[in-house]
């Protein structure tokens, strides 16, 4: 079942690869595909624990897979930035990453996901899992980054913000209840 999940999650990438040659604005298309993929999968990676509390079904074993897939999309997204958009011009990349909130918000979110991906395997996970709460910071930054990516935000940008808000509010709510 996990293999199927990975396959489905990778489908948009295959599609993008197939379409890139005929795309009207190929760089933008790759940005959108990988960015949307990363945000959607990041949101999905938060669903299993919600699911456990709300509908008492245990999908926690999928969490890591979904999270790593989200990281894969984020990695490709960052690669589009470095390779296609900036053409390895590291001075500009560095300058942009410091100066432009739109860029550094994305960069910070990516660094958090990178950290989580590197520490998601057995040995390191036991040591670093408590820091994996940083995923919430990454999510908020990623949502802000996607909101800023358009001249004006559209249906997708608002939808993912609503989805993120629902997942976060449920967590706060269940935490409060557990204190009582």
């Amino acid at each position: 079942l996990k293999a199927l999940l990975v396959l489905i999650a990778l489908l948009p990438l295959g599609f993008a690869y197939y379409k890139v040659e005929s795309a009207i604005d190929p760089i933008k298309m790759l940005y959108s595909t990988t960015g949307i993929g990363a945000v959607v999968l990041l949101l999905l990676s938060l669903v299993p624990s919600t699911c456990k509390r709300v509908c008492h079904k245990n999908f926690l074993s999928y969490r890591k897979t979904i999270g790593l897939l989200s990281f894969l999309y984020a990695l490709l997204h960052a690669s589009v930035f470095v390779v296609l958009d900036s053409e390895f011009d590291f001075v500009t990349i560095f300058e942009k990453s410091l100066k432009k909130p739109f860029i550094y918000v994305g960069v910070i979110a990516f660094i958090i996901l990178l950290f989580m991906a590197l520490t998601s395997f057995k040995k390191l996970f036991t040591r670093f899992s408590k820091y994996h709460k940083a995923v919430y910071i990454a999510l908020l930054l990623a949502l802000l980054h996607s909101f800023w990516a358009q001249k004006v935000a559209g249906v997708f940008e608002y939808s993912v913000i609503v989805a993120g808000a629902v997942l976060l509010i449920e967590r706060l709510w269940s935490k409060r209840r557990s204190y009582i």
Partner: protein
Amino acid sequence: MNITPEALFNARRHFLKLGAGALVSSSAISQLLAELPKDLSLKYIPDSNPQNLTLNTLEQASNYVNFYEFSTDKEAPVKLSQKMKTSSWNVGFFGEIKTEQMLEVDDLIAKFGLEERIYRFRCVEGWSMVVPWIGFPLYKLLDYLEPNSKAKYVKFTTRHEPSMFPDQAKGIFASIKHPYVEGLRMDEARHPLTFIAVGMYGKRLLPQNGAPIRLVVPWKYGFKSIKSIDLIECVEKEPLNTWQEQNPKEYGFYANVNPSVDHPRWSQAKERLLGKLTKQATLPFNGYEKEVAGLYAGMDLRKFF
């Protein structure tokens, strides 16, 4: 090789349909006759393309548009706009001019004639294309309207017709404030490069490209080139254009293409030419520096962005 011209191909298809229709009923024939596509090709003086610009394809230019009256998406307006009624379209001319009046687009074409202009087009979002527009320079229209001494700016307004433009019917949920407004300083408006387009690629404008009449100002970001114009007014004060009103920190009145003045969220140094996987440098005033830089002599272009 035998290649059937597009017009002939369509005519043949209609003829075949007519033949089939004759078997059905004569009312079906008259219905089909009414559906015959209007000839959308235009007669114009071609541009010799002295700069040797490589054109983007009509397919690219007509399937990747910003037309917020339909959608914030780039491709959705293509489908959403096909029912737009663009023939018999009056444009109103008001304000500080000799005689306020309304004129039909075809009257304008008859009055001012048509020529082709192959221009670079650079969107503020960072993509660009090269398009062969067909129309007439705005100064010809202004000469005819005879603005008076109070006329310092030209203000353009997109048609407000919520039944035609779905986003205009959304009230507070609209993506931007409607109707869309743009403006030019009188000397910018009178510059020979400033162009009113009624066609592109040899034919009438497609609905999604701002049919039936739009502005094209090649040295400014694309959002200045307002679509589906309803009103042209000569005014005394600088008009507040839609994007400046929407977000004054990010968009100004002038919006001259300038690789050394960044958008707050992204750099403007390079651009993505549609259809290309690699980027190219953006030129000052989008490559029209020689022609237009004089309009802004002594102005701080960081301040008047």
